[in-house]
């Protein structure tokens, strides 16, 4: 018998897996027959293979099954329910705003006035302090949001790309956007006639005048914004009075006490104003959507006209349909409407259509009667509240399951209410400003969309967070074992829901709840971010 050394363990492993090349197999088997050590090793290796197969199989069983159709359906249903509740509240709010039958037009005008006056007082008095505030608040909100999104995703690749995107978004204005800020309280910002600004422009001043050409987008904040020149991109403005005598080739989004359009707008105009007028020379090629105290239209709208608010007087042309949710609608002689005209009013006599006005489609007046009734007397109100409560409860549970750290805050000790409210206020107010600014930079748009989604989700989830906090605080003072999270959440949510719908007081409590909830979310997310970071 020749001396044969034993095969190596890797070779034996290949053989045990049944992968040893066939021609060499007989020799191998002969050795194994005569070598008890190798025979035992092959046996053990085969056992190890079976062990691995069974553990791999078990790990598969332990890992959750792919979501079943029912879970998918339930999730979709939940989202739809939440969205429906959200929309219902939104339209309820709009209806509330535009409900002169109970509040009276004067009272409504007063509220709108008060609102605009407050905003513009802040703008007027604070133009100089607005600049650092905007940058600081925007920066903080952006960083917090980015961190929060990144943390929730818990994926390093996504997180780092988001942070990168945020950095690019922050850095981009330095190169792509011209910033012109007032240095004193009464300084004006002017793009003189003849100057062509080959950038986007962010301008803050007492008066912002654009007499030259801006090739990019414009964000203008001030007491008065006047465009006599040309804006090639979009114009976003927040001002006491906005005069658009020049040309805006993109969209106009305006938030002002008075908005006057005397020139052409290349795309659509979306305006919130106490008074909006589209003069005879004013032309909006796309849609005009106005949330207004009053609206006078003598110029032309290329596509649809949609108006919400106090009154609308129409003398000009509308290419397609007119839909109005204003208290009064008046269509005068020379007016031309290419499509249908639908008016939603409280009294039929509030709609006046001159016989000389020409209508391409049909005209319809829908009289809303139910608004005369108090919302508390409508059964639908309670049904929607219950649906909203159920959606918020389920969402809260889901959130607790996904991110328990968000619910770690306690009312008794550990949570400073003023601080949380402060953080919540910044998150609630500064975030949309930051989003608008970021959206103006080209690369910032995706980030702005993500931030907007996160912000909206945060606002929606804030009541669940406050509900949980409140419910737990209530049970904390009680003797005996603490109840489960679900019960505390449900009790807390019921309290929150009732509180924010109390007559009058609810208007004050609702924003407080939202701010508190957002503050908790931001602070807790920050804490767990810190805790999760490797030292």
């Amino acid at each position: 018998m020749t001396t044969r050394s034993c095969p190596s363990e890797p070779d034996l492993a290949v053989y045990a897996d049944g992968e040893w090349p066939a021609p060499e197999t007989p020799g191998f088997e002969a050795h194994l027959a005569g070598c008890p050590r190798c025979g035992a090793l092959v046996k053990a290796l085969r056992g190890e293979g079976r062990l691995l197969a069974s553990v791999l199989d078990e790990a598969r069983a332990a890992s959750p099954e792919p979501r079943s159709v029912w879970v998918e359906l339930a999730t979709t249903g939940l989202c739809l329910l939440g969205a429906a509740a959200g929309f219902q509240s939104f339209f309820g709010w709009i209806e509330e705003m535009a409900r002169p039958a109970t509040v009276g037009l004067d009272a409504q005008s007063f509220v709108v006035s008060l609102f605009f006056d407050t905003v513009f007082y802040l703008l007027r008095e604070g133009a100089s302090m607005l600049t650092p505030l905007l940058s600081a608040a925007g920066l903080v909100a952006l960083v917090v949001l980015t961190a929060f999104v990144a943390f929730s995703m818990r994926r390093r690749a996504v997180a780092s790309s988001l942070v990168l995107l945020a950095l690019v978004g922050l850095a981009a204005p330095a190169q792509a956007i011209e910033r012109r800020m007032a240095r004193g309280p009464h300084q004006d910002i002017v793009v003189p006639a003849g100057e062509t600004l080959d950038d986007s422009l962010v301008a803050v001043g007492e008066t912002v005048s654009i007499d030259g050409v801006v090739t990019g987008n414009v964000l203008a904040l001030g007491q008065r914004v006047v465009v006599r020149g040309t804006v090639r991109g979009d114009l976003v403005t927040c001002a006491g009075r906005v005069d658009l005598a020049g040309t805006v080739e993109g969209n106009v989004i305006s938030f002002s006490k008075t908005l006057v359009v005397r020139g052409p707008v290349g795309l659509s105009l979306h305006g919130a104003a106490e008074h909006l007028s589209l003069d005879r020379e004013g032309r909006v090629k796309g849609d005009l959507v106005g949330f207004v105290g009053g609206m006078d239209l003598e110029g032309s709208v290329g596509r649809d006209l949609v108006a919400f608010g106090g009154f609308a007087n129409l003398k000009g042309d509308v290419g397609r349909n007119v839909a109005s949710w204003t208290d009064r609608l008046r269509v005068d002689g020379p007016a031309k409407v290419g499509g249908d005209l639908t008016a939603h009013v409280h009294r039929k006599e509030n709609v006046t259509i001159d016989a000389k006005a020409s209508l391409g489609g049909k005209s319809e007046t829908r009289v809303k009667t139910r608004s005369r009734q108090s919302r508390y007397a409508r059964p639908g109100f309670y049904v929607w509240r219950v649906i909203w409560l159920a959606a918020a409860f389920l969402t809260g549970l889901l959130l607790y399951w996904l991110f328990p750290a968000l619910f770690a805050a306690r009312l008794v000790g550990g949570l400073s209410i003023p601080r949380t409210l402060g953080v919540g206020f910044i998150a609630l107010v500064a975030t949309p400003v930051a989003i608008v600014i970021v959206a103006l930079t080209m690369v910032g748009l995706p980030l702005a969309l993500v931030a907007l989604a996160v912000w909206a989700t945060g606002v929606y989830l804030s009541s669940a967070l406050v509900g949980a906090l409140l419910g737990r605080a209530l049970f904390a003072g009680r003797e005996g074992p603490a109840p489960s999270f679900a019960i505390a959440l449900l009790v807390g949510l019921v309290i929150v829901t009732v509180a924010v719908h109390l007559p009058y007081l609810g208007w004050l409590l609702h924003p407080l709840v939202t701010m508190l909830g957002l503050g908790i979310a931001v602070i807790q997310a920050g804490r767990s971010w810190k805790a999760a970071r490797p030292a």
Partner: protein
Amino acid sequence: MVASSGSAEPEALSEVLVRAERGESEAFGELYRRFSRRVFGLCFHLLGSREDAEDATSEVFLRVRESFGRYDPSFAFGAWATSIATNHCLDRLRRRSRESRLFEPEPEEAVAPGGGLSPLAELLADEQRATLARALAALPERYRIPLALRYHAEMSYGEIANRLGVTRGQVGVALFRGKERLRRALTSGSETP
């Protein structure tokens, strides 16, 4: 009883496959119900993340539906679906690492003859099995993927080598190294409770 249920099952599957060939949506739903766990398990072991595995499973069944015309009924359907899943997951991993080669294979001769630790016993206590499962999930891709393809998808060395673009010898080395790491993880895991 056993024989009847054993013979009824493949019969029913072939019927499902015939219906699927006619393009019936329900048949694809049935195939999903029967094979999604297996496909999901493979995707989970290959990709190493639950979310990715869920996405991959949906995409694999979408591909199954799209390319059902190319399915040869003389092969087992499970193996065909597994092979689609493997291709899909490996594509994903390649895209993730942005390299054409999935992993840098080790030289074949790098294996020391005779590992220091003896093979794991086939029967392990539950606790040890759990440790082993964790160690498997924590293995680097270069070892985890060949192990999953070999012992979960039951592929031959040749098939694995083909998919990964390496030699059969390198597959053997990766499997051996992977198992060695698992042995080490289990011994150190039991030493430090």
